[in-house]
């Protein structure tokens, strides 16, 4: 029986924690650098200049 009490309690605490974090995130709109840095891998091709390597 203890395990049921424990599992329900743990689940409730986790859900409350997640809701608090979600509301905090929405309220503060703290997504500042997120989009900017995720674009990093897509940058370089725009300037790429590929030349045959005669030394190879």
């Amino acid at each position: 029986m203890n395990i049921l009490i424990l599992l329900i309690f743990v689940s409730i605490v986790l859900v409350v924690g997640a809701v608090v974090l979600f509301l905090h995130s929405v309220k503060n709109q703290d997504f500042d650098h997120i989009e900017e840095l995720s674009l990093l891998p897509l940058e370089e091709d725009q300037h790429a200049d590929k030349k045959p390597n005669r030394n190879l």
Partner: protein
Amino acid sequence: MQTKSLTVTYNDQIVRCFSYATVIWGIVGMLVGVLIALQMAFWQVNVEPYLTFGRLRPLHTNAVIFAFVGNMIFAGVYYSTQRLLKTRMASDLLGKIHFWGWQFIIVAAAITLPLGITQSKEYAELEWPIDYAITFVWVVFAINFFWTLKKRNEKHIYVAIWFYIASIVTIAVLHIVNNLALPVGLGKSYSIFAGVQDALVQWWYGHNAVAFFLTTPILGIMYYFIPKAVNRPVYSYRLSIIHFWALIFLYIWAGPHHLLYSALPDWAQNLGVVFSVALWAPSWGGMINGLLTIRGAWDKLRTDPVVKLFAAAVTFYGMSTFEGPLLSVKSVNALAHSTDWIIGHVHGGALGWNGFMAAGMLYWMVPRLFGTKLYSEKLANFHFWIGLFGILLYVAAMWASGITQGLMWRALTSEGTLLYPNFLEAINKSRIMYMMRLVGGTMYLSAFIVMAYNIFKTIRSGKPVESTVEVTIAKEDEEDISWKRLVFSPTLLVMFVGMAVLLGFVTTDLIHFMLLFVVSVLFVVACFFLFGFKMDQIKGHSWHHVLEGKPLLFTILTLIAILIGGMVQIIPAVTVKDAVPMTAVAKPYTPLQLVGRDIYIREGCNNCHTQMVRPFVAEKLRYGDASESWEYANDHPHLWGSKRTGPDLFRLGGKYPNSWHYNHMIDPRAISAGSIMPAYAALATRKFDPSIISIKVKGLSRLGVQYSDYEIQDAAFLAEQEAKSIQDNLSQDQITTEWDTEMVALIAYLQRLGKHEVVEGAK
């Protein structure tokens, strides 16, 4: 904001070299895999002494993990690191040393493993001289990588780089600790750890070789190449932050799930279970992040083989990381451990996740490295479908085989006796599945060879190109935040205090537990709040954003995160006596038994036979009493094994006469009808060298095994005495053999198994 431009030419020659090696070693590793799958289906394919299953299995695992996936990782790391940091690798020379050094190690492994030169530790079989070479080459790689980080032209390090950092640092730690050994010859050493401690260290390494060699670097590759393939940013950068820290912190604790129901103390087993189950969350976070990066480009799944391979690879990652925690639940593990289910699990990850990620990366990258287009998309699609069916056939066969074995081994009659008392009954049921596995594996290999042809034709249609880019370096108007401010910020403080609170969970009281749980969650919530806290007053950057601009500090925090789990598990087990209770002291192996044990290691018997009787009714009925930790105290290294293609051997001693063992080695099927074990007839004529026994005994004595001076000095004489008594015993059964044959030594060892005499009066 100030900007300046400069031209950077990337070192793509090193990427091309590692790409060629990936394809070549991939074929070799998988070919050996198909060969050993053939040996499981048809024992006749074993060729004594060099090409038996026991010697080839480590060759297969090492070739696939370190040669195939290793070269693939280096190709991906060198390609993406230069582009993400907008700079050329720091040193071309170090790159060349890294490449040729790594190939030398692979060739050394390919020579020594069939020769039986092995430490016997899974995925760490290579002997000490090669271990030194690995350390050297890894350090060269690390220097080149971190030097490149130092001279980067992009301040912020992208998530792929974080995973590379974690991999480089953790593999170094794992490799050094697990391979601590005392050499007793050029091709022979003994682990400094013994028995339970050795098993714990080995699986801390073994599990994390999967984590930090087969997973984290590939995740870095995923975070770079999937966005490139679909031309979209990663689904959630925030999720990738959580994915990274949670994954590297949790993974390192999970090793003991390989040792459930063993002689490892319960406290360590339970830690392994809890963290393995918890690991499911970050693993799936990463899987979701990878898959959803394809959002908005799902149509490419129909047309683009690269996207198809990446999507399937990430799906296999998700499946394997669901199956892993499932297999770590004790009741599931009781059924699955040592069966073919584990082989199915491993290959779902290796073929699906690693193999398909490698293929997707090569199909995307090679045309760009040679300034051309992929030779044939049709062939790439063919590769995908044949490879996929091959994996499904393989995995389904191993699931069916493994569950059948687990159920048959434990089945009891209504009277309480074993329903299938002959171990071979389960193995013979698996034969058809072994053939199915062979078909699946062959399909996968064939598809891979098609890829090799496609890549070869692509290379022939183009020329190696140097990628030169114009890099714009932007110096933003942002606050210069020192590392001290980051380290002594409330964010880190709360994190470390929160971790200390976790120690309070060592409690059995329900209320105490609930209170601690609430406190822990409060700490986690507080951490998230603080993570978002604006440190930079000008740009409003958060704590983690600032950290991403400080690679040295990032590396140190990564090192701390991966060290905590290992330290909590290993240091008490090695240094605190009560952490691994020993109820008695076992006598050391006799010199002849030691020679026999080394032959057992050389032939790789531990690849098919475990030495760990678990505390189950069915195992007690089949093998005898459950194993206890003290019985392994002299085992340098442990030989617990992880797979039962043959029965457990821990209580084998005294079960059969010497002549039974002799005849069984000469022709296993003459004694056990239906056995798939290779014959070891050559052991009856090959002789051991008595002159080196005392060096071995002395070596073990230096590691703490309690040999007397007499046993060390007269080891050869004692071995001869014991061997002659076995020779006499065999002659009574009309078997004529020389006393100094390897067969006699091996029989001495097998007859000792499970018969650990207690040292009277010892503490």
